[in-house]
């Protein structure tokens, strides 16, 4: 074990957690202030803009909405995003900023991509630099990167209001939430990260692709574009849809260990800090700490497992005279699909973080991970993208699990379960069950359809169990709005574009609607005072049970699939 996790590797991971810990309170508090409508340092800049947006559209940001109004507004807004993006992609050829003269996308690819970006999945059926114009990237994808994350934040805030509210139907104003999330949180953070990335070497220009002659005399066309600005929100908004085909493995998206560190921190920055926002907004910071503790305690062991599996290398290659050991001159391990500058540790860290959060960007090719190393990102998605998860969506997904846990644990202490003073009854259970269990239904059904059809099987790239894993990974990623892939799968076909698109929609809105319904139902309830008979939800014991429930639900649902995919693949690998 020791030789699989080096001291340097350990220190890099520690540094990662340390930086996130440092930002936990300031960013968390800042977001709480924004959503509580308080003045912040940025108010002088953005207040006037915010006001003029409301005036222009005659929106009254103070007007509360009940959960149905909130949901309908949200759906209408997402629909508008879908239509705009779909049209931009479809008619890309007629639009400006298209130096490579890319034609419009096929309808099914445009559908898949539009769905992918409004749902914050950012699954890449397209290959950025070979398919999309700068206009599509900026006005289309970049905008949705912001907006879809802001929608996630809004739903979370609405749910928090539901938990705080007492016998009210008001869960906030969607217009105000989504506008504030964009202007006060995502925009300034993105600008900072974009500048840092630019300084570390990420490109940002509107030039034509560069034609050069290589040293050996070959022609090389180098793709260009406004990457830094898009990269920043891609990471911060847990989007993950790359500017380039290979995403953050591309040296222009992620040129150095520094840029890599900034980006991988950005993946978890907001999902982590939201736990503090949550604690502040429900007036009990310990609740936020309990949730972040549960997340870290699931994440850290899996991360370390992934690192060690990748460092152990590809057993098959040991038949050749190849040095996979780690030493001061090389990272060693399973380097297929990995970049030299990132080595094993940073690739495994990224793979774990990007799937823990529903980011979905990659800096190494997951399909080429060792079977058990690749099982880690898969499992993290199978937990329902609640271990950090997407911006907003991770935490509200986690709260569904909390409610489920409170219910089971509450029964065990002989009381109708309650969470933060709100009774958890059959309606809440219905919504939580829907939110927790529905994505897995789409995964299982989707995989079955793909395996049983010619069109589905046609996309499979790798042989044997790994081929099964590719399909499993794709549907897990889509239905949980992650967006990463075992990218061998040839998914740019009408079959996959459509089916995965449906899964993405279901995975997003089939959770958002129950979440808002839950918010509405909770808001309408009385607040029960806390007594000694109340099950405390911030103790290590509760955190332990919460972790148990998340793992048990995930494992029990996917155990057969995991056995037939990565586990068999692993057993075959070590048998070679």
């Amino acid at each position, binding site marked *: 074990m020791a030789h699989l996790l080096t001291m340097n590797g350990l220190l890099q991971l520690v*540094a990662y957690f340390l930086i996130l810990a440092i930002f936990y309170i300031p960013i968390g508090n800042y977001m709480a202030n924004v959503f509580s409508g308080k003045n912040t340092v940025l108010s002088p800049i953005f207040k006037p803009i915010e006001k003029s*947006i409301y005036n222009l559209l005659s929106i009254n940001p103070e007007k509360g909405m009940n959960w149905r109004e909130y949901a309908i507004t949200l759906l*209408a*807004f997402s629909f508008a*995003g879908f239509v705009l993006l779909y049209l931009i992609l479809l008619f890309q050829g007629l639009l400006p900023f298209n130096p490579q003269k890319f034609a419009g996308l096929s309808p099914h690819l445009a559908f898949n991509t539009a769905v992918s970006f409004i749902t914050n999945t950012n699954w890449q059926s397209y290959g950025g*630099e*070979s398919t999309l114009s700068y206009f599509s990237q*900026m006005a*289309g994808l970049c905008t949705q990167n912001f*907006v879809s994350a802001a929608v996630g934040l809004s739903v979370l805030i609405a749910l928090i209001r539901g938990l705080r509210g007492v016998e009210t139907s008001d869960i906030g104003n969607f217009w105000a939430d989504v506008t504030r999330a964009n202007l006060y949180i995502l*925009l300034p953070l993105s600008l900072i990260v974009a*500048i840092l990335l*630019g300084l570390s070497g*990420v490109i*940002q*220009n509107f030039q034509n692709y*560069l034609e050069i002659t290589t*040293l*050996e005399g070959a022609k*090389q*066309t*180098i*793709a260009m574009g406004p990457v*830094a600005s898009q990269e920043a*929100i891609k990471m911060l908004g847990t989007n993950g849809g790359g500017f*380039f*085909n*290979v995403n953050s*493995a591309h*040296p*222009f998206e992620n*040129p150095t*260990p*520094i840029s*890599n*560190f900034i980006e991988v921190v950005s993946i978890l920055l907001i999902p982590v800090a939201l736990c503090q926002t949550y604690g502040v907004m429900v007036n009990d910071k310990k609740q936020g700490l309990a949730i972040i503790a549960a997340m870290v305690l699931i994440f850290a062991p899996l991360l370390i497992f992934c690192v060690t599996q990748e460092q152990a*290398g*590809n*057993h098959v290659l040991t038949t*050749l005279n*190849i*040095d996979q050991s780690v030493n001061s001159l*090389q*990272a*060693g391990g399973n380097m297929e*699909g*990995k970049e*030299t*500058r990132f080595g094993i540790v*940073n690739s495994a860290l990224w793979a774990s973080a990007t799937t823990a959060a529903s980011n979905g960007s990659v800096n*190494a090719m997951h399909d*080429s991970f060792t*079977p058990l190393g690749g099982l880690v990102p898969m499992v993290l998605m199978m937990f329902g993208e609640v271990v950090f998860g997407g911006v907003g969506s991770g935490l509200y997904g986690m709260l569904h699990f909390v409610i489920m846990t409170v219910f089971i644990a509450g029964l065990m202490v002989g009381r109708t379960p309650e969470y933060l003073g709100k009774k958890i009854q059959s309606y809440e259970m219905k919504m939580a069950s829907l939110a927790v269990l529905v994505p897995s239904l789409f995964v299982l059904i989707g995989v079955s359809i793909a395996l049983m059809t010619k069109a589905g099987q046609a996309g499979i790239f*790798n*042989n*044997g169990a790994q081929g099964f*894993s590719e399909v499993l990974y794709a549907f897990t990623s889509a239905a949980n709005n992650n967006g990463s892939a075992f990218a*061998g799968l040839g998914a740019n076909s009408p079959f996959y574009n459509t089916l995965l698109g449906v899964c993405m929609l279901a995975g997003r809105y089939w959770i958002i609607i129950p979440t808002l319904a839950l918010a509405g139902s909770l808001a309408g309830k009385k607040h029960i005072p806390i007594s000694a008979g109340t099950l405390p939800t911030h103790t290590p014991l509760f955190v332990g049970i919460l972790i148990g429930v998340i793992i048990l639900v995930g494992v029990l649902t996917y155990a057969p699939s995991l056995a037939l995919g990565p586990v068999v693949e692993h057993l075959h*690998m070590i048998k*070679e």
Partner: protein
Amino acid sequence: MNNIAKTTLKSFGLMLIFTAILGGIYPTITSLLLEGFAKPQSIGSLIKAKDGSILGSSLIGQNFEEPKYLWGRLSATSTPYDAAASSGSNLGVNNPVLLENAKARIQNLKKYKNDESAKIPVDLVTASGSGLDPEISPSAAYYQIPRIAKARGIDEASVKAIIDKSTKKRTLNLLGESRVNVLKVNLRLDGKID
């Protein structure tokens, strides 16, 4: 019904405003700032010859097959190091193609090296994630010194010196991995840059 129509209208309105701010103004401001503060990086960290012509990007690898050059990672793009369409191999660990690719690379390496016993560094026989990886590990670079020295008829120490000059250590001694920029080594071997 009227209400829903109104909401939809507002939705499109807000979406257009966001498109303008987030998809238009934000990238533009970023571009202006970076052009001011980090012009070379913003256009791709290009390496220029002494005469000003562009030799390539220090971030984008080039394909090297001649024995006199340092070779980089295997590239899985349709033609190796196609910087207009990046791609990884996506081969699974048990995929026979992976083994074949490694074997082919080993064969190429062995052609110029008689020392059968030395183990080959893994990054020399595996494809990078992007297909454009500009770097290899020092271990993989050192492995190739004898061949390069022999092909160029220079001593191994000077090749090693160039490699070391083109090597970056871990940032802050902590982040990432130490690595050798293949293009820079080869440009230095050819004397095109300092």
